[in-house]
């Protein structure tokens, strides 16, 4: 059972790494799309219809493909005055509660946005832009990013659990 969980964790990490690599590549593609737009407009007198729309679709992918990696690295911006000021045991408890709350928030968001993406897929809804594509092609990254982040928050909570219990035991 434990080895299965570890294997799943390793797959999750690999998927996150791959997603983050795609996000970095998409940043380059956004730059390329806009450079091409400027060249097409002024050199060929033929502005594209797709560059602005595609870049904005890619932005969504960049944000939510990067999000799990940021969660894995514990890089999300937070105000840590209270955590820094608490005793080690107190901070450990508070951190555990924060991880659980963040996991729950991400999980509920993933469920809500996943449901919305499913609705878009089922009803064949397209984006409203000069270059329409099925909306779920873009929005699918939101439930992916939030669900994967929820899993990371939960993994971090589980990872911290032994030290939390040990500190609690030592203090009592």
């Amino acid at each position: 059972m434990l080895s299965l969980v570890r294997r799943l964790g390793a797959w999750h990490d690999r998927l996150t790494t791959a997603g983050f690599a795609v996000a970095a590549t998409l940043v380059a593609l956004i730059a390329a799309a806009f450079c091409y737009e400027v060249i097409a407009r002024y050199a060929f007198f033929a502005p594209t219809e797709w560059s602005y729309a595609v870049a904005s679709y890619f932005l969504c992918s960049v944000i939510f493909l990067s999000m799990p990696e940021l969660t894995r690295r514990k890089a999300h911006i937070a105000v840590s005055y209270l955590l820094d000021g608490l005793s080690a045991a107190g901070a450990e408890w508070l951190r555990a509660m924060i991880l659980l709350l963040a996991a729950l928030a991400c999980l509920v968001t993933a469920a809500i946005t996943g449901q919305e993406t499913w609705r878009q897929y089922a009803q064949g809804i397209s984006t409203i832009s000069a270059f329409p594509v099925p909306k779920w092609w873009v929005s699918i990254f939101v439930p992916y990013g939030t669900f994967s982040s929820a899993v990371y928050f939960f993994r971090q909570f589980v990872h911290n659990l032994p030290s939390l219990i040990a500190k609690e035991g030592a203090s009592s």
Partner: protein
Amino acid sequence: MTWWAAFAGGLVALLSLLFLGVPIFAAFLVLNIIGVFVFFGTAGFGLFANSIYATATMGALTAVPLFIVMGEVLFRSGAMEVLFDSIDRLIGRIRGRQYVVCIILSAVLGALSGAAMAVAGLLGRSLFPTMRRRGYDTQFAAGTILAGASLDPIIPPSVLAIIVATLADVSTGKMLVAGIVPGLMLTGMFLIYVLIRVRANPSLAPDLAADLADRKTDVSIVVAATRMLPSLFIFFMVMGLIMLGVATPTEAAATGVLGATILAAAYRRLSLQMLSEALYSAATIASLLLVIMCSAVMFSQLLTFSGAARALGEIIVGLSLPAAVMLFLMMLLPFVLFMFLDQVALMLVLIPIYQPIIRIYAFDEIWFWTLFLIVATVGGLTPPFGYVLFALKSAAPDVPLATIYRASWPFVWIIVGGMLIMAVFPDVITFLPRLMVAR
């Protein structure tokens, strides 16, 4: 539910979650899920999902990762070393010249990137040790680095300006261009202050001979100035394209990335590894900011929906305060709050509340939001929790935090003085945006 109960409850809950240390984006998610459920029931969840989607696909925000890539590529291209050597050469034989180098270098770096923390860290690791070794006053040197770094979110390209423009629904191009003159004016004010202080108290800087002893660059002034041109060309290309209406800010940012890449190739620093590091860094920094925005925009919409933004506006207008007093109060509140809270998070709360008020008072929007942007920038400099202070502290761990705190205050007051000038003479801000060709 009455608007004041929703407003007070939401604000107290948000502040509590933030002070507990919940990641900012998660705190907004929690509040928004609860808020949407309270106001609309489960039927409102589609609105919540759509607010995340709409923010994540906002075209104007694509400039955020692009300007970050541009700065990252330039930082890695060797352009910074060239700029440092050239500015070092160009500054004459004056006592306290490293203070001057520091401030001018920061302003130039601000024109090439938009992150105050990155510049404070960079100068803290490179210039700060040199200044201390040469006998410069540690506290005053720290102050000039903090002051210089604070110019970066004001002088375009500025990620913070793009975020303010997007949230306040004003022209991104105008917001970017509006920062040029205030940035230069503050640079001038810092320089005047530094030179006066050194003249009044020569012990703040070493003898000129000692100062020039280990100067690396010995090229002619013309060569030094010429070597700066490629980097400065990128700035003028990006801002020029925006001002002339040739390109939108996002297109200009993309051409800036191309220019920076060509410059890196010219300096023989371009490699796949360097590019990929810059792209990864841009994806990281942009996503950290934009995840917060995506999670929080619904909060602003709930404030509007609950009637809180309008009712607060009406109450404030009912006070019939003179415009100058209102402006002062609208700047004082974020000045205090930015000392303790994250810039983007606070902007997301304050901007929807401020919007109706500035319309009623008929404040010029670009002028007002530029002042607001400068207040947000000052927030990074003010103790006890300014981000820039900690960036310098982590770059120079042996300098006590109390010294860094004391170092920042004179420059904070200079910026406040500068804001007073900009408030009295709005043209300082609005002159350049007025000249822009619309696109």
